[in-house]
């Protein structure tokens, strides 16, 4: 007999206590407490919708509680487009069971069979106009029970809110300047901290003259712990001034060399690596290829480049510390803090507050440790620490650069008979809370420093890292997929939106386009012919129909397509790009079709796809972390430009709504397909294949020279 716990959604199995998710707080109010956090995508609204639907209460009665290690279920990290999938499913089950418990209690009180009772906005009523409510019964219905999976959530047809574009709960605060971001949080007694970081990569602080900094009015403390140094002051301006003075008194070691930014592939392919065969499909019948196409694709290091620099707040009370953070994982951060501070985890409370848009493992966790270290000198007062733009763009982890080589064996008809895909890249994850050593920057700087964690790749079962989306969804007769993960890490890398998927989809979809072109076959038809999954075909057909594929050829305009199913298990997305250009490329229009299963909040899904498509366009046309042999040089918006309002394409999104299929996330679905669609449109327009991102004027000229 299987235990009922096995049927629970994964987040609920890990946190089965009902009261950790749902509490009836006051008359007419309830609190929903997910373990996932708002990272600027509106996920909290979708989770509120799910709870309101299942409990039959107005969504306005719900207070969504920010995740905290003091009270919240532990749902690990908010990443990988898994929030609706994991937190949403858990909440749906929890709320179904809570509703059932209240119906049982109401049945007993009213003497009416539970099946005859109805719930409307929290009021429970039955035949003969008898009624009670969740709040009347809250005193007698204990939720301090473990979920049993005995209750069945409503069928898709019976949900009132799921599938509707409910307005986001956080937007009014943001347009009316009501503080919501951690940057705007100012508890009584607040002090401000700044940390001294080197310009030269991996340089260590070897001497520090504090005299000038000590003279800055408003300075309260200079904190030093080995190579970690920072200031605490009574205002941000004073903290900035003190840091500036401290920098002038700093002596640094020589640091460690960086690779040649103009030969990323050469660098990646020359390093010691750990090699893994990701997947192999042996050929059923060996077919001699008539020719083999060998192509190399690269993408650069990419910065998170949130509009706000990372920020955190900490407050000590003797040997207990409270931390406010925009980290993606409060429990994971707590685990790393416990290692660094040599404190039991119970002495540390980590509470989430919103930061600016988060696209992966940025400096949120790093600055939390900075705040904890500086707050030690604050005599129990809270200290808020904010990074500079410069540090945000040079010391936070980057998305890893990749070199991808594909060999496609073609028969005499240019049909694919063999496919070998090899990736060289640093790992795509060095998140906190997952290893015996901490992943936080200051942990490598303090007295008795921890070694810098070399990034690794999540296992294939979690979607992989550098290898994410490297296994083709296409029905090729044979393939071998190999991942070479670097064992050195001169440029710090960790998880950035899509991990390796953007690079791999770019490579696969570029070569598919090239082979279709070689055959004189329409690239949409070629893809459809090699796919068996009907949902995959549906998004491709929908995008093609919506973009009126393939529009009449016009001089100076190009069209291209791209497709992927994110992680090969998540959302299906097809993109068609219309571009215009000669040496500078402008993307005019992106047309996308998306299938996330049940789209809980369709406008939220469209918002994510639009945002992903625009961000991907920015990556493709403009973004590249720049460095010389000693330092990151793209530390300002001038040196790391992103797409501006005038450059943003029109984006048109169609959702294929499938209410009967469990929802998956939308946040990372568009990047790979859009990247490939733009690259393929460049070929359609200019007749050259640009295989190195970003697609800039220089890269196009280089590709033209190579082709001629």
């Amino acid at each position, binding site marked *: 007999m299987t235990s009922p716990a096995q049927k629970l959604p994964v987040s609920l199995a890990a946190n089965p206590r009902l009261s950790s998710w749902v509490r009836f707080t006051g008359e007419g109010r309830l609190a929903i407490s997910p373990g996932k956090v708002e990272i600027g995508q509106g996920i909290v609204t979708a989770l509120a919708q799910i709870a309101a639907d299942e409990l039959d209460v107005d969504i306005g009665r719900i207070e969504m509680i920010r995740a905290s290690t003091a009270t919240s279920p532990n749902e690990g990290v908010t990443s990988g487009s898994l929030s609706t999938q994991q937190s949403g499913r858990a909440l749906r089950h929890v709320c179904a069971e809570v509703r059932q418990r209240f119906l049982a209690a109401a049945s007993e009180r009213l003497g009416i069979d539970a099946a005859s009772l109805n719930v409307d906005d929290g009021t429970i009523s039955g035949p003969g106009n008898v009624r009670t409510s969740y709040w009347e019964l809250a005193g007698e219905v204990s939720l301090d029970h473990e979920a049993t999976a005995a209750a069945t959530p409503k069928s898709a047809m019976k949900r009132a809110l799921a599938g509707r574009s409910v307005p986001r709960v956080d937007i009014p605060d943001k347009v009316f300047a009501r503080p919501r971001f951690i940057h705007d949080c*100012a508890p009584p007694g607040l002090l401000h901290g700044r940390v001294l970081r080197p310009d030269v990569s991996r340089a260590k602080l070897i001497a520090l003259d504090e005299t000038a900094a000590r003279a800055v009015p408003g300075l309260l403390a200079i904190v030093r712990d080995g190579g970690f140094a920072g200031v605490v002051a009574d205002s941000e301006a004073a903290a900035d001034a003190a840091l500036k003075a401290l920098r002038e008194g700093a002596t640094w070691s020589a640091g460690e060399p960086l690779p040649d930014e103009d030969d990323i592939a050469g660098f990646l392919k020359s390093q010691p690596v750990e090699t893994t065969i990701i997947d192999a499909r042996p050929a059923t019948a060996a077919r001699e290829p008539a020719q083999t196409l060998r192509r190399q694709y690269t993408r650069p290091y990419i910065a998170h480049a949130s509009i706000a620099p990372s920020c955190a707040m900490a407050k000590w009370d003797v040997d207990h510390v409270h931390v406010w953070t925009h980290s993606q994982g409060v429990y994971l951060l707590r685990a790393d803090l416990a290692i660094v501070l040599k404190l039991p985890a119970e002495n540390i409370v980590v509470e989430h507050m919103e930061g600016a848009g988060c696209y992966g493992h940025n400096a949120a966790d790093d600055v939390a440790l900075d705040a904890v270290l500086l707050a030690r000198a604050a005599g129990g007062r809270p200290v808020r620490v904010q990074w500079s733009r410069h540090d945000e763009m040079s010391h936070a982890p980057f998305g890893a650069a990749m070199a991808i080589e594909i060999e496609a064996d073609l028969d005499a008809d240019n049909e694919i008979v063999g496919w070998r895909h090899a990736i060289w890249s640093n790992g795509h994850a060095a998140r906190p809370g997952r290893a015996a050593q901490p992943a936080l920057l200051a942990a490598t700087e303090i007295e008795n420093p921890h070694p810098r964690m070399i990034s690794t790749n999540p296992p294939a079962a979690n979607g992989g890292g550098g290898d994410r989306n490297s296994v083709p969804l296409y029905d090729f007769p044979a393939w071998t997929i190999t991942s070479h993960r670097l064992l050195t890490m001169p440029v710090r890398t960790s998880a950035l939106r899509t991990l390796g998927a953007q690079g791999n989809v770019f490579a696969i979809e570029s070569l598919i386009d090239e082979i279709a072109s070689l055959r004189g076959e329409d690239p949409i038809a070629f893809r459809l012919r090699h796919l068996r999954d009907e949902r995959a075909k549906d998004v491709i057909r929908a995008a093609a129909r919506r973009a009126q594929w393939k529009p009449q050829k016009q001089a100076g305009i190009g069209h291209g397509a791209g497709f992927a199913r994110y992680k090969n298990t998540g959302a299906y997305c097809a993109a068609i790009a219309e571009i215009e250009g000669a040496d500078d490329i402008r993307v005019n229009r992106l047309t996308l079709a998306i299938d996330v299963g049940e789209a809980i909040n369709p406008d939220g899904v469209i918002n994510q796809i639009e945002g992903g498509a625009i961000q991907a366009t920015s990556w493709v046309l403009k973004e590249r972390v720049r460095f010389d042999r000693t330092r990151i040089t793209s530390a300002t918006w001038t040196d790391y430009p992103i797409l501006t309002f005038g450059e943003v394409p029109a984006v048109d999104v169609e959702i294929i709504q499938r209410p009967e299929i469990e929802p998956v996330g939308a946040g990372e679905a568009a990047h790979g397909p859009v990247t490939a669609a733009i690259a393929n449109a460049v070929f359609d327009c200019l007749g050259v294949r640009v295989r190195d991102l970003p697609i800039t004027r220089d890269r196009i000229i280089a590709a033209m020279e190579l082709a001629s």
Partner: protein
Amino acid sequence: MPSLQFRLNGAAIALDADPDQMLLDVLRGRLGITGPHFGCGAGECGACHVMVDDRAMASCDMPMWSVENKDVVTLEGLGTAERPHPLQRAFISEQAMQCGYCVAGILISAAALLKRNPSPTEAEVRAALDRDLCRCGSHNRMVRAVLRAASEMAAP
């Protein structure tokens, strides 16, 4: 320190401040005005935009001496939930953001645009917002929201 006078969200302000201190530091620091956000400190991203005499300006890059006797409006001065500016209503209607950190500056840039050009074209909206960066990719929604607000304001 010399006494500096200016108007902030319609109210007269006089304070002793270092004339070389940046307006953003004074707003967010001693005045507790958190609408304008710090983004870069170099006038490159727009998150700290405030209106100075009806023009959108980067307050992170603006010394206090330069706002002497000027009229400064932050997001707080645009409208309230009870009396919203049409732009604020439109940003809610269009759900025109993801994280919303840049929105304080963008609303100000848009408000300054509508003051000098009450019925802008889409291209004019994009041009007016071109110094405001958005990393989440909500640009098109924001442009739609500005156009919606403009047409609402034009309606009799």
